[in-house]
């Protein structure tokens, strides 16, 4: 495992919420990427946590772009760098709303065209920047400001949608597992063509947890199996790190759900549905890793 560099690219005085695990994760993403990097950021929390003009808290170039457009922007940028013979890395750092909902068209196009870039979707399972409205990535039973009674639709499976594009490298990651994230970003950037990393980033205001609980909740997501750490290299699946043990034995979902105010009022039926989804997903992943499907 590579040494994590000391250099910081996410400087102090971001305007992130206290306890923001996305800012935590981005710090490691940028350490893995190094200075010859452009971050492409659509409307999302990251747009705002850079700080307000005339300052920025990021020590790499950041191109802020419209909500629907991150992957298309990255596409243009990547082609342009290539035409100039430059090796500058293009990394999209986008929220779940800008990936799974309004950004999905541009993402699909960029993947289908084999764009040489890394797309990281940091997922706090709601439209965080605008005050926690539901997104396609919000799980069933979660309260958001537009699902005050709890979301009744399941979380959109962006990973399988991306997988259908047959890209060279795809992975899941977690803000609570920074070394795993660091390695995956390194691998992604060393792989030519499109890479996609789906990163779970617990969000104190959105998930209604105390500001010092983001990492604990993130670890619990993995321990209960609702979030699985894996990577697919040229279609070959490997379950990673902390999730290896979870594939054999996992904690009940209640251990994860009960930590969060957004699941207050979730029905038994919804919990069971989530448990079933988790089991189904683990079974599918196990089969795929074993080469059985």
């Amino acid at each position, binding site marked *: 495992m590579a040494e994590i560099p000391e250099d910081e690219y996410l400087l102090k005085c971001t*305007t992130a919420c*206290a*306890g923001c695990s996305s800012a935590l994760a981005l710090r490691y993403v940028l350490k893995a990427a190094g200075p010859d990097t452009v971050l492409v950021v659509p409307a999302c929390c990251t747009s*705002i946590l850079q700080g307000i003009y005339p300052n920025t808290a990021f020590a790499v170039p950041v191109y802020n772009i419209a909500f629907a457009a991150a992957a298309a922007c990255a596409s243009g940028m990547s082609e342009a760098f290539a035409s100039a013979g430059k090796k500058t890395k293009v990394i999209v750092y986008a929220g779940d709303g800008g990936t799974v909902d309004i950004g999905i068209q541009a993402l699909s196009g960029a993947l289908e065209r084999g764009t040489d870039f890394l797309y990281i979707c940091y997922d706090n399972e709601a439209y965080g920047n605008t005050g926690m409205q539901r997104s396609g990535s919000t799980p069933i039973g979660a309260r958001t400001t537009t699902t005050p009674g709890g979301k009744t639709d399941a979380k959109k499976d962006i990973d399988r949608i991306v997988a259908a594009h047959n890209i060279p490298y795809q992975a899941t990651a977690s803000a609570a597992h920074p070394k795993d994230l660091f390695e995956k970003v390194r691998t992604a950037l060393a792989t030519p063509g499109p890479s996609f990393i789906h990163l779970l980033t617990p969000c104190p*205001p959105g998930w209604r947890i*105390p500001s010092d609980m983001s990492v604990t909740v993130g670890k619990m997501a993995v321990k209960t199996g609702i979030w699985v750490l894996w990577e697919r290299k040229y279609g070959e699946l490997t379950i990673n790190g902390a999730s290896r043990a979870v594939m054999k034995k996992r904690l009940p979902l209640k251990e994860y759900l009960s930590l969060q105010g957004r699941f207050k009022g979730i029905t038994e039926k919804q919990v069971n549905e989530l448990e079933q989804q988790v089991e189904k997903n683990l079974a599918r992943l196990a089969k795929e890793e074993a080469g059985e499907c």
Partner: protein
Amino acid sequence: MYEIRIHSRGGQGGVTAARLIAMAAFLDKKHATAAPFYGAERRGAPVVSFVRIDDHKIKIYSQIRSPDLIVVLDASIMEAVDLLHGMKPGGRVLINSPHPIDLPGADVITIDLTGIALSVDLVVAGSPILNTPVIGAIAKMGIITHESALAAIRDMFTDERNVKAALAAYEELKL
């Protein structure tokens, strides 16, 4: 016109406090407006809210430049902002603090809103709720009536601990 500027951090309910005061003033048959000024609205970031109370219709939308009352829900804000900026001569400052605070040139009143909230277990996601007890303090200062303050709180919140906290603040505030 009576103008109030409320300083808080995102997530502490400063905007709601402004709305509660406006609602109480409205119930007192006055004209009132309440507005936040949003910077980056992040949990923990400094937030400013405004309240105007008048006997006549209020047609002003621009920010309050010379407040009669400055309210501080989080004393640590004072290191980050120019707290007394624009304060009217003779203006008052109400600060959430367990001990007295001295600000030259200002008539400061302190009250331990955090302590009051904790004493009635008015805590959400680990944070004490400050916006309802502060309404009790503001009522004691005579800006809104006691009855309207409680009515406004009950209109917005079902949890009676909010009313308990406001009553405790009302009792505790020494003018």
